[in-house]
């Protein structure tokens, strides 16, 4: 089993005919994901990658029965695209776009509250259930089906952790890249609640980074509710205060969002915290007694 996405997921692509949309839709199709079509306003009625193009998400959902959407739309228009997908009843929206203004995401967050949808991202690498469904921009070939759930704010650091697992012969149930922005649809806590409820996820890797206190919130919940082994890493232990480290959300400001505070909270929750990013795979192996 898995969480959120599997072989029954029917994916539509917003920004389908653009360069990014085309490249990653192709990758997802080649991976075996059921891509049912896409949306580019003004290009409805055409065919792209052997699939229909629609003018609106509502049309696409109606015609194809899509239940998930991935967004490759430039930042000024991305918030609108998220709301369009939510309004069309798409259950799972994955927004890859980096650079959406915070003000737009504040509005989106309110908009989504009234609708029964889940947003992953923005500014994220997407979500993958190995050998079943790839949504986003992850390199599919590094993943291997199995029983470790992964949640991470960072793309390449997710690949690093997964690469270590796969090299040790340890597969993954579902890997969720939640994104590096200050306001995101699915937090560490949300993702961990999902993975904890999944019987086929036997252990969880939680990769965080400096900025905000979502890791601390998740750790507090893990302490009370999770009996599965959780292995964690926090990036940015050496980051200077007051500087944004690439991700819009990765900043230590006013004394909050520090790596050491997150690591302490995670350790207090019984999470195995890796001091070095090179030992994530090995620590999973040890915790599982493999």
């Amino acid at each position: 089993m898995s969480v959120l996405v599997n072989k029954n997921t029917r994916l539509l692509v917003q920004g389908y005919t653009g360069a990014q949309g085309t490249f990653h839709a192709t990758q997802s199709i080649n991976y075996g994901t059921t891509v049912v079509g896409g949306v580019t306003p003004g290009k409805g009625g055409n065919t792209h990658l052997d699939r229909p193009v629609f003018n609106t998400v509502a049309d696409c959902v109606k015609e194809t029965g899509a239940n998930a959407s991935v967004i490759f739309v430039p930042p000024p228009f991305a918030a609108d695209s998220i709301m369009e997908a939510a309004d069309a009843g798409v259950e799972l929206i994955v927004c890859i776009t980096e650079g959406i203004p915070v003000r737009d995401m504040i509005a989106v967050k309110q908009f989504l509250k009234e609708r029964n949808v889940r947003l992953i991202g923005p500014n994220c690498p997407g979500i993958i259930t190995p050998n079943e469904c790839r949504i986003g921009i992850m390199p599919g070939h590094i993943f291997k089906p199995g029983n470790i759930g992964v949640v991470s704010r960072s793309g390449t650091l997710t690949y690093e952790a997964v690469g270590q697992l796969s090299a040790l012969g340890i597969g993954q149930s579902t890997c969720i890249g939640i994104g590096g922005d200050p306001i995101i649809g699915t937090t560490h806590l949300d993702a961990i609640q999902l993975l904890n409820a999944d019987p086929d996820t036997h252990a969880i890797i939680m990769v965080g980074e400096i900025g905000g206190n979502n890791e601390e919130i998740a750790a507090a919940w893990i302490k009370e509710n999770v009996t599965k082994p959780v292995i964690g890493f926090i990036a940015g232990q050496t980051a200077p205060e007051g500087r944004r480290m690439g991700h819009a959300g990765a900043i230590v400001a006013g004394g909050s969002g520090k790596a050491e505070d997150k690591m302490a909270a995670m350790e207090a929750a019984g999470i195995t915290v890796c001091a070095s990013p090179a030992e994530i795979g090995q620590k999973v192996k040890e915790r599982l007694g493999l």
Partner: protein
Amino acid sequence: MKIHEYQGKAILARYGVPVPKGKVAFTVEEAEAAAKELGGFVVVKAQIHAGGRGKGGGVKVVKTVEDAVTAARNILGMQLVTHQTGPLGQKVGRLLVEEALPIEKELYLGITLDRASGKNVFMASSEGGMEIEEVAHHSPEKILKEVIEPGIGLSGYQARKLAFGIGIPAGSVNAAAKAMIALSKAYDEIDCSLAEINPFILLKDGRVMALDAKINIDDNAMFRHPEFADLRDLAEEDPLEVEASKFSLNYIKLDGNIACMVNGAGLAMATMDIVKYAGGEPANFLDVGGGANEEQIKNAFRILLSDTAVKAVFINIFGGILRCDILATGVVNAARELGISVPIVIRMEGTNVAEGKKILAESGFNFGVADGMKDGAEQVVRAAQ
């Protein structure tokens, strides 16, 4: 993007936040003219993007135009060191000359994002004029908060609640509430990521005013505000960071001697961490991004090597979208064109890694090729010694 106090005040004034009369001065002559115009009893304030300017000697209250000239001469061009500038300080290139005012009470106003709720929060405190982090640490009960509802903004009742709560006398509450609502409106409309008025002052005559203004603008929203592009002060930024930003490279200069080139922000931070873990000191944070091309790799390389402190370079790439062969070609071409003065250790993993390694091996350069992050970090730390 950070902007100067005088720029922030000009914006806030447009929204109706009362600010003292003042003028920016780039020269001593301009400061003299401003002091004359304001009647001689003025404050001369260094304009740099860092707090703690008063303690560092960057703020002087003077009674006469002559003293204003002396203060301007002393402050302009000085290397101002505060707790936020680092030991080297920041050179002062601009002054704000402002009317001096009889202060009754120093207060604090600020707005910031609460990530958990996805809403902005308005903060007010009776403890103005000191670091708000200090107040939060020692007496958190003295920081009052009101959630700003999206689409509504700070409501009148919330502003009054805050104003009464921080001890503003009844006769001044309406003016203070009006200033708070104006600040909240400005914050929203100009896409701030942080706004602080510290201190927000109550005058002896009952008026209220923003005596300082710290405004940061959300970089991601700059496309909506082309008029703010002029507010960027390149003198406040590290020259290598300015250069990197021209090529859409995320580069942050640090104090160590091991340069890092990585794809992805999380992995770039983790690479700095593992270099430190291996006993080294990172010279920078550099995220070349997910889809870097050869040209960007070359420019990244050039920028890394122009930092004279650098003794070795660690390239750590987990190829997803950025293919290892593209990275390798970029590095080899950059090395040919720019020459290599320091050892380079490369760790590659992911898409087309075999082709990438072949390109490096056949390049004729003596790159250190690492097997995993840990090995790479250890190799580069040894190489830098």
